[in-house]
């Protein structure tokens, strides 16, 4: 196992008081927390600092850490043979876990949890970021994860084990939404409940559709004569092609609503699809078309800039 110098990560002496450790951590959190930081590698730096504080803020874990002795950061080392026993009796397999796993699973954790070694402890919750295509979000999908989790085996020995998790996502999931997968976090200890898995959803941008909640927006390019005279156009919606009647006198930016063709959820609620009209003009016109446009110009009294005069 590689040694990490938690005191150096927080920039404090090994003799620092609990208050000094907290003050040093707060300062670094303000500097590197991804929510507030503009520094490069802020997230990585914050993880290191948070890992160090997680152990040093708890007097019992700090004592356990101090008993590991002093090593150079990155040095391979093995804790003393009786190390686990003095802190709650958990045994460890030291080869396939890292220092953070060791302390995360140490019995007698902070936040008022029971300190008895055999008391039930809930399993840790996991969080995962999930990236979905627009189509997957529209129809619902099943995803599979490969995770490496540190959990005790049947003899209570802590090991880092690969875990495959299969999760069904309902249709109508939107960008930024959070989902909970019950019982798919770390296993509970001594009969405690299993942790949950929380999913942070990102939905990839689609070339045609943009979602706003359950509503969808798409651009609808129209030729000038279609906008003036009205037309029936074929529209590709996520659920298949439909015919859309464009009323005469449609102007650019006008939203044509296609009811119930947005995202829908399993409970039956659904959004609408809005086709936003755009007037596009041909870039190449032949002699005949030019003449026809000329006739239109002569015949028309329409002034699009009347409001400017």
């Amino acid at each position, binding site marked *: 196992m590689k040694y990490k110098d938690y005191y150096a990560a927080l920039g404090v002496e090994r003799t620092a008081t609990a208050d000094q450790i907290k003050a040093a951590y707060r300062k670094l959190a303000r500097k590197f927390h991804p929510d507030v930081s503009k520094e490069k590698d802020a997230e990585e730096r914050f993880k290191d600092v948070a890992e160090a*504080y997680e152990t040093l803020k708890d007097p019992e874990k700090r004592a356990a850490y101090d008993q590991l002795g002093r090593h150079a950061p990155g040095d391979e080392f093995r804790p003393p043979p009786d190390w686990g026993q003095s802190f709650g009796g958990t045994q460890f397999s030291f080869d396939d876990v890292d220092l953070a796993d060791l302390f995360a699973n140490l019995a007698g954790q902070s936040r008022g949890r029971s300190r008895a070694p055999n008391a039930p402890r809930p399993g840790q919750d996991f969080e995962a970021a999930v990236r979905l295509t627009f189509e997957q979000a529209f129809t619902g999908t099943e995803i599979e994860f490969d995770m490496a989790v540190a959990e005790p085996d049947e003899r209570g020995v802590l090991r880092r084990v690969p875990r495959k998790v*299969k999760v069904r996502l*309902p249709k109508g999931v939107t960008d930024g939404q959070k989902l*909970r*997968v019950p019982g798919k976090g770390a296993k509970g200890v001594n009969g405690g409940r299993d942790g949950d898995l929380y999913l942070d959803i990102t939905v990839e941008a689609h070339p045609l559709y943009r979602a706003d909640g359950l509503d969808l927006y798409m651009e609808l390019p129209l030729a000038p004569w279609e906008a003036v005279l009205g037309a029936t156009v074929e529209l590709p919606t996520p659920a298949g092609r439909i015919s859309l009647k464009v009323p005469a006198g449609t102007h650019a930016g006008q939203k044509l609503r296609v009811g119930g063709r947005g995202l829908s959820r399993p409970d039956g609620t659904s959004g609408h699809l809005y086709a936003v009209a755009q007037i596009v003009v041909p870039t190449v016109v032949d002699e005949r078309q030019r003449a026809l446009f000329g006739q239109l110009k002569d015949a028309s009294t329409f002034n699009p800039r009347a409001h400017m005069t």
Partner: protein
Amino acid sequence: MDSTSALVLDERGTLSVAQLVEQSGLSEAELHVLVDCGALAPHDLRASTWLFSTRCVVTARTARRLRDDFALDDVHAVAIMLRLRERIEALEQELRHLRSLR
């Protein structure tokens, strides 16, 4: 391998105080402060037992994360951070909406 259904955390499901404590990692006293500050709203504030929408799990877990990440002792400060985050998120959503109309 069995597949497990993911539950969307939105306005539709409901949770008791005990469930919210269990799923967020906040204490009941901290939840009360967040309700007093208006950061979390039960369905009926005057009911003898509070029920929350499952969406509140997202808010309460964010509160717990902010409390731990910034080592905050004062839940009122967490409530203010939540309010500011909500405003940022609402503005970002409005920006996305306006871009979708461009």
